[in-house]
């Protein structure tokens, strides 16, 4: 190998570095270092003229190594690597020295800063001498995307992908797609009927030639790497042949098992053992609930098979379902959320006192196909039916399970708005009903949202600023007899109040969906502290994750409303399409590799890899690394007792050279 000819470029970064570090002195110092044939300073290295200077110097002085002493590699390492490439020098024969975040920005002592700057530059110069050429590898990208979750975010992503002629697999664990939005009656702030705007998209997704909907299915494994994933899908046993089923609904009418609590209806109604979750289900194919079907449990009945003219009932399906493995290039996770269960908040009486409802329960009550056919009524003898008595006053309680260190610290973002929606719906369904809305803050930040609040102010809703402290059902004063009592401080007036009402609706907050954590582990995704999926950057990369090729969209990333979920679905689709359109993926070369002559086959490294990139070659009894999966984290390198694992661009020789450079005068 030819002798290193290092060029050192020291940046002022305006006054960021230059006002603390004596940049000319550092450049002069660099000139005197071994292997350095050229050193120069510049006000802004990253600017076009700055980069031009580097390119020119590489050519003029036949530089075969470059050191730029400026800011953090996170900022401009890619910039300067590209600059070198453009001048015909491999970008990995380059090293950055951080004089800003690690020197000028952490001290005001100019002398100390300049000394440290010299040390840091020397270390970089010594290290770069041992750098070798590295090249990114290019792999093909499978032109297909897996979308996990068939709610509005997932549907939007699927439709965008399909319209770009990308093949889409949309996997949904419920029998129908539609997600949470399908349960809503009206949507804020326009009061559009949720089903009316969602069902056309559901049908579009189901019938699109580029989209395969896997309903009543779950993703149980994901292996491979960006551009080349394999996903294992578990198709749960529905005991109905979807090809033969015409969706006529005869089985739903005749099933003799009628009293199964209907989870989709928030257990306010019953369903049969064979059921579809709601009337506009897509696909409109029923499933049999094996926990409650007499035929599957006891071998007796079989009525649904008898009435099915299409012969679609198949009791003999394997109960464990079937599995299918698909090839995809990338994944969009849009698995949604669940709402907070307020049972532990004993002071609010949910589950103890009748007519205290969660938001989704009240949503179903308002819905025309819900337990009360859309009538807002109290329970009769503990059961909710449409013949119940109308309430004279309803309390809407904000922030249940949100903004509360005892449960969830986060704000769930949509509850202020849906509470306003309920206030309006109550006024509509029950003319003359008194509506009290108890809030801490009124968060109406979206388009048309504040205007919606103003509309409700005009509709004579009694807004009281105060978090409800207690809901009980025993009266102290005559006007409270037989009613519920809300205890609260009206903070704007500054007095405590007891307000008798007949019904309480709790604005239950949003939480990560059931099974979110398990799915994160399957997909090698991270979660943030609140349990929602972690985006790559909270500001600049909200729909991508730290794992290349896996994107997130919708409420699984954080609580949000429908417009934002749709926007994120489309955004994730755009990123996925970009990858597929390129047709290839670039794999960074700073991966770990095995020095086979040193590997003893001890297997210590294999379980340590967070990305499953290491496997064992049984024949040769050696560790094998799949570079495409390796993220260059260095864990295996540190753990290997034989030093048989080394990382390109971070090998022992290079690191020791850098340390020597730092300690040279120590």
């Amino acid at each position, binding site marked *: 190998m030819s002798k290193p000819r290092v060029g050192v470029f020291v940046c002022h970064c305006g006054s960021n570095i230059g006002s603390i570090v004596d940049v000319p002195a550092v450049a002069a110092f660099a000139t005197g270092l071994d292997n350095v044939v050229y050193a120069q300073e510049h006000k802004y290295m990253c600017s076009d003229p700055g980069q031009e200077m580097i390119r020119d110097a590489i050519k003029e002085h036949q530089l075969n190594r470059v050191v730029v002493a400026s800011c953090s590699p996170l900022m401009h390492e890619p910039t300067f690597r590209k600059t070198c490439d453009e001048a015909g020098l491999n970008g990995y024969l380059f090293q950055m020295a951080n004089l800003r975040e690690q020197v000028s920005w952490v001290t005001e002592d100019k002398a100390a800063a300049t000394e440290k700057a010299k040390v840091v530059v020397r270390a970089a110069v010594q290290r770069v001498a041992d750098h070798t050429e590295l090249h990114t590898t290019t792999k093909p990208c499978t032109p297909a995307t897996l979308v996990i979750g068939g709610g509005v975010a997932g549907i939007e992503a699927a439709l965008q992908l399909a319209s770009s002629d990308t093949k889409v697999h949309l996997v949904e664990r419920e029998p129908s797609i539609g997600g949470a939005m399908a349960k809503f009656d009206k949507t804020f702030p326009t009061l559009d009927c949720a089903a009316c705007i969602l069902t056309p998209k559901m049908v579009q997704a189901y019938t699109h030639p580029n989209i395969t909907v896997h309903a009543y299915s779950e993703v149980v494994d994901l292996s491979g790497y960006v551009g080349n994933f394999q996903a294992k899908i578990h198709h749960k046993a529905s005991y109905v042949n979807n090809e033969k089923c015409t969706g006529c609904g005869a089985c739903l009418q005749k099933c003799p098992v009628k009293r199964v609590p209907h989870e989709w209806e928030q257990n306010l109604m019953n369903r049969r053992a064979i059921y579809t979750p709601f009337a506009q289900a897509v696909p409109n194919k029923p499933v049999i609930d094996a926990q409650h079907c007499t035929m599957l449990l006891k071998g007796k009945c079989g009525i649904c098979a008898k009435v099915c003219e299409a012969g679609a009932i198949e009791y003999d399906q394997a109960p464990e379902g079937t599995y299918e493995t698909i090839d995809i290039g990338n994944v969009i996770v849009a698995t949604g959320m669940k709402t907070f269960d307020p049972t532990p908040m*004993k002071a609010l009486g949910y589950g103890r006192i009748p007519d205290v409802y969660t938001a989704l329960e009240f949503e179903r009550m308002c819905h025309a196909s819900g337990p009360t056919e859309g009538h807002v009524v109290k329970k009769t003898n503990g059961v909710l039916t449409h013949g119940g008595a109308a309430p004279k006053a309803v309390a809407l309680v904000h922030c249940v399970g949100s903004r509360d260190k005892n449960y969830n610290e986060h704000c769930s973002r949509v509850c202020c708005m849906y509470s306003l929606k309920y206030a309006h719906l109550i006024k509509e369904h029950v003319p003359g009903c008194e509506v009290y809305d108890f809030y801490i803050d009124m968060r109406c930040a979206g388009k048309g949202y504040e205007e919606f609040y103003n509309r409700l102010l005009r509709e004579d809703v009694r807004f009281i600023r105060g978090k409800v402290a207690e809901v009980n059902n*025993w009266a102290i004063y005559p006007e409270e007899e037989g009613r519920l009592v809300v205890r609260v401080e009206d903070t704007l007036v500054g007095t405590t109040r007891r307000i008798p009402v007949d019904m309480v609706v709790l604005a239950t907050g949003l939480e990560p969906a059931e099974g979110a954590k398990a799915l994160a582990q399957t997909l090698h995704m991270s979660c943030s502290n609140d349990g929602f999926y972690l985006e790559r950057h909270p500001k600049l990369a909200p729909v991508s994750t730290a794992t290349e090729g896996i994107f997130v969209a919708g409420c699984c990333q954080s609580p949000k409303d429908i417009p934002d979920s749709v926007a994120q679905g489309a955004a994730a689709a755009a990123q996925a399409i970009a990858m597929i359109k390129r047709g290839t993926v670039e794999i960074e070369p700073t991966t770990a590799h095995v020095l086979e002559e040193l590997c003893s086959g001890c297997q210590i490294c294999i379980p340590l890899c967070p990305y499953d990139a290491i496997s064992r070659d049984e024949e040769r009894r050696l560790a094998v690394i799949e570079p495409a999966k390796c993220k260059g984290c260095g864990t295996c390198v540190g753990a290997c007792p034989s030093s048989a694992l080394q990382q390109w661009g971070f090998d022992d020789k290079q690191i020791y050279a850098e340390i020597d450079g730092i300690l040279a005068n120590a």
Partner: protein
Amino acid sequence: MTSYAYYPGCSAKATGASYEESLMAVARVLGIELEEIDDWNCCGATAYFSVREKLAMAISARNLALAETQGKDIVAPCSACYLGLAKANKYLKEFPETREIVCGALKAAGLEYNGTVEVKHAVEIFVQEPMLSQVKAAVKHPLTGLRVAGYVGCQMVRPYGFDDAEYPVALDTITTALGATPVPYPMAARCCGGSQIMTNEEVALRMSKNVLLAAEKAGADCIITTCPLCHMNLDMFQAKVNAHFGTNFSIPVLYFTQLMGMAFEASGLGIEKNLVGPSAGLAAHM
């Protein structure tokens, strides 16, 4: 033989005398040894904290140090004593600065505390297994048909405590074990007014009135309590509540140990010391 260091509290020898009597009677029946802490001092209750903080904890901690020499956990029948001792115990463990001052003060007095004592409320020692089964076994006269409002008050369940802070079940468990019927009692863990009966009487009378009202509405034959101050407010001041609010309460208020003693057919329960006489439902079992 289950054995505890017994912390009576200042009320136990005076207004709360029948609480101590009945507690001792019940402990005898169940074979629980309650060895009074020698030379115990006042826990400070709520009042000392209003004047001094670290000093209040140090005064309270003296009892912890004394119990530690006995080598036993503390049982306190009074809810305020229970909280005073438990709070000192907890803060000593959680806040190093507090520990330094309190332990320094104890040392200056020739005492030492190493954090080995647990503080329990009297209810706690009966409601947890295996003692609960022994309670059931000791019942000679099941209090069948007696409707009991289990009044737990505040400081037994908040801010710490072994039972739910909003709707506790411990007293109902004991009531059921005695064969009696616990009534649904929404004011079970709501405040009687405590020491406000002296400093702001009207406030406490109102709060006690609501406690009594809920018991009356629930059709209770009697209320059982776990604290001498709650007992005093609800029993001795029941007449004043009636006078002030024009109500007509006549609900006997017993210590829960007195109810246990009735079921055990033990004597020396001090029930005659209660001001409000027995109701028809209660008299049927006496």
